[in-house]
């Protein structure tokens, strides 16, 4: 490159851009957690924040596109469960309490939730990697409100599991399952997939921030997820459960998600469904608050 060109490039590179608006920054600190109300105010006050959030989520989707293995593998396991259990245990629907005689249909919403769980359990890995690579520092020194950084990981997870769950839905429909709850019902199903994925993703991010080790996060999440799956109505209807299991399932957020997802899928809006919906929403808020605290602590530990 000749000198003239370089000088040109340099002077253009150094020319100030945009206005001198250093002082009108919305003083947004902290995290997605703090409070959802505060978040909404922050968003209203700073449309820039939404653009930054979009850019950060877009970055994580680019990762998925460049290295799709994990995203694909995560769909395969629930898919195998669907096909295997759906054909092996189709007779189980003759037991009391099953809302359908098609076991594929019974399994589908549950397995959509399971896909969401597996897809979100290791969400904290991205954050941990970015922290170790110094990318978080780069994000922290840029003028984006810091909650958008954490929110990008949680929202990316909640969105990608909805895509993965759709694959399960499609497979189940090919196998003959019909979502009889209609559009509104499916909205509830996807809502459950989103909330449980977001909540578990937030938990995973919180663990990553606290434990700071990939293997530790994997260990803890594996330890938690499978028992929660088996102590829910994912595989088995509640009336068919032993009584101790039934009690546990009632306070199991995974079960709340399964219940809501399935109710929506079949359009069976039983009277006490609101309890599971509220439980699920509260669980989501609590987990994002937990992640927010861990995130703030990480910010201040420097």
């Amino acid at each position, binding site marked *: 490159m000749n000198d003239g060109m370089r000088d040109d490039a340099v002077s253009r590179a150094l020319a100030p851009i945009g206005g001198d608006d250093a002082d009108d920054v919305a003083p*947004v600190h902290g995290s997605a957690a703090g409070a959802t109300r505060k978040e909404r105010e922050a968003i209203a006050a700073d449309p820039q924040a939404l653009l930054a959030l979009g850019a950060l989520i877009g970055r994580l989707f680019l990762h998925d596109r460049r290295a799709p293995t994990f995203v694909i593998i995560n769909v395969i396991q629930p898919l195998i469960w669907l096909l295997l259990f759906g054909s092996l245990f189709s007779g189980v629907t003759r037991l009391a309490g099953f809302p359908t005689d098609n076991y594929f249909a019974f399994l589908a919403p549950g397995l959509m939730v399971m896909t969401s769980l597996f897809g979100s359990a290791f969400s904290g890995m991205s954050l941990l990697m970015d922290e170790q690579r110094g990318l978080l520092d780069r994000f922290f*020194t*840029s*003028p984006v409100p810091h909650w958008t950084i954490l929110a990008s990981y949680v929202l990316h997870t909640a969105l990608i599991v909805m895509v993965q769950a759709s694959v399960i839905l499609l497979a189940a429909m090919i196998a003959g399952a019909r979502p009889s709850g209609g559009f509104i019902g499916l909205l509830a199903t996807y809502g459950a997939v989103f909330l449980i994925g977001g909540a578990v993703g937030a938990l995973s991010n919180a663990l990553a921030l606290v434990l700071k080790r990939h293997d530790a996060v994997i260990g803890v999440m594996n330890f938690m997820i499978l028992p929660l799956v088996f102590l829910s109505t994912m595989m088995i209807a509640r009336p068919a459960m032993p009584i101790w299991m039934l009690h546990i399932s009632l306070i199991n957020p995974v079960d709340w998600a399964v219940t809501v997802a399935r109710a929506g899928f079949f359009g069976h809006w039983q009277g006490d469904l609101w309890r599971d919906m509220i439980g699920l929403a509260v669980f989501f808020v609590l987990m994002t608050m937990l992640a927010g605290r861990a995130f703030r602590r990480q910010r201040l530990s420097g």
Partner: protein
Amino acid sequence: MTHPLVEVHGLKKTYPGPVEALRGIDFSFARGEIFALLGPNGAGKTTTVRILATLSQPSAGRALIDGHHVVNEAPAVRRLIGYVGQASAVDERLTARENLMLQGRLQGLAGGVLKRRVEEMLSLIDLAAQADRPSGGWSGGMRRRLDLAMGLIHGPRLLFLDEPSAGLDPESRAAIWSEIADLAHGSGMGILLTTHYLEEADRLADRVAIIDRGTIVAIGTPEELKSRIAGDVLIVEFADPADLAEGVRRLKTNEAVRDLRSSGRTLHLTVENGAQAIPVVMTALQGVAVVSISIQRPTLDDVYLAATGRTMREAEAGIGAENSDSAIRKGEAA
């Protein structure tokens, strides 16, 4: 505006342990200046940069960037700064262009301005040809240049460069140096650079603060600092190590020699006046095989030595960190 670009008063940082990383440092510099923090590993350079870049909170003291308090007005400070940390921080799954686009968006750029800035940055760092390859397989030098471009994309008023050339091969280092020198001249941007390479501080910085164990031990332009060391350095090259050992033995007690350090087959003598000391040294070394004698003005290492009583390399070795290329060990062959 009359206030300095960067203003640091009594800045202290104590990490849990406790480790007193900064013991109260003061400095300031203006827009358009390159200011270097020079010191061995563990001196507190990164700690200083991280506090100024709003990544870490000071334990005591105050720091202002263009009049904005780094703790109380962190969001305003972040609008003014570009940050290039000590370790390369590019997203390896993204291409250079994608990395720059992302960074630009985080800095509030969009649309045509963003596209234009990305292209300008790519040509600035000579990476236009590789712009669409994922940065994962890149060399250290290329990543470092991308780091630099990411720190510059929004045209910051103040750029932090924490050890911009550490760990690079000499060629990449030279490339980065010429880029930094280019950036500085004629622009209103200030640069805070940290380094443990004497030559880097000497060549790039308008002013240098020498930092050691959390304290600034000397501050000024490189010329000022060097002229504070009264006297010259004589460099005597010997034919072989045995001659050097003999030379050390004879000169150790010589009154004309204030200090002596050896490195390889050369001996560095600090003397009052180089021209007058040469005949004295020649006489003392009669019969010893001397290849050459030359006079050198003091380097920043001599300044560091005078201020701390050890060379930078010794300081680095003492901390068990990587070696500096530039320092000389004292009394190695003696």
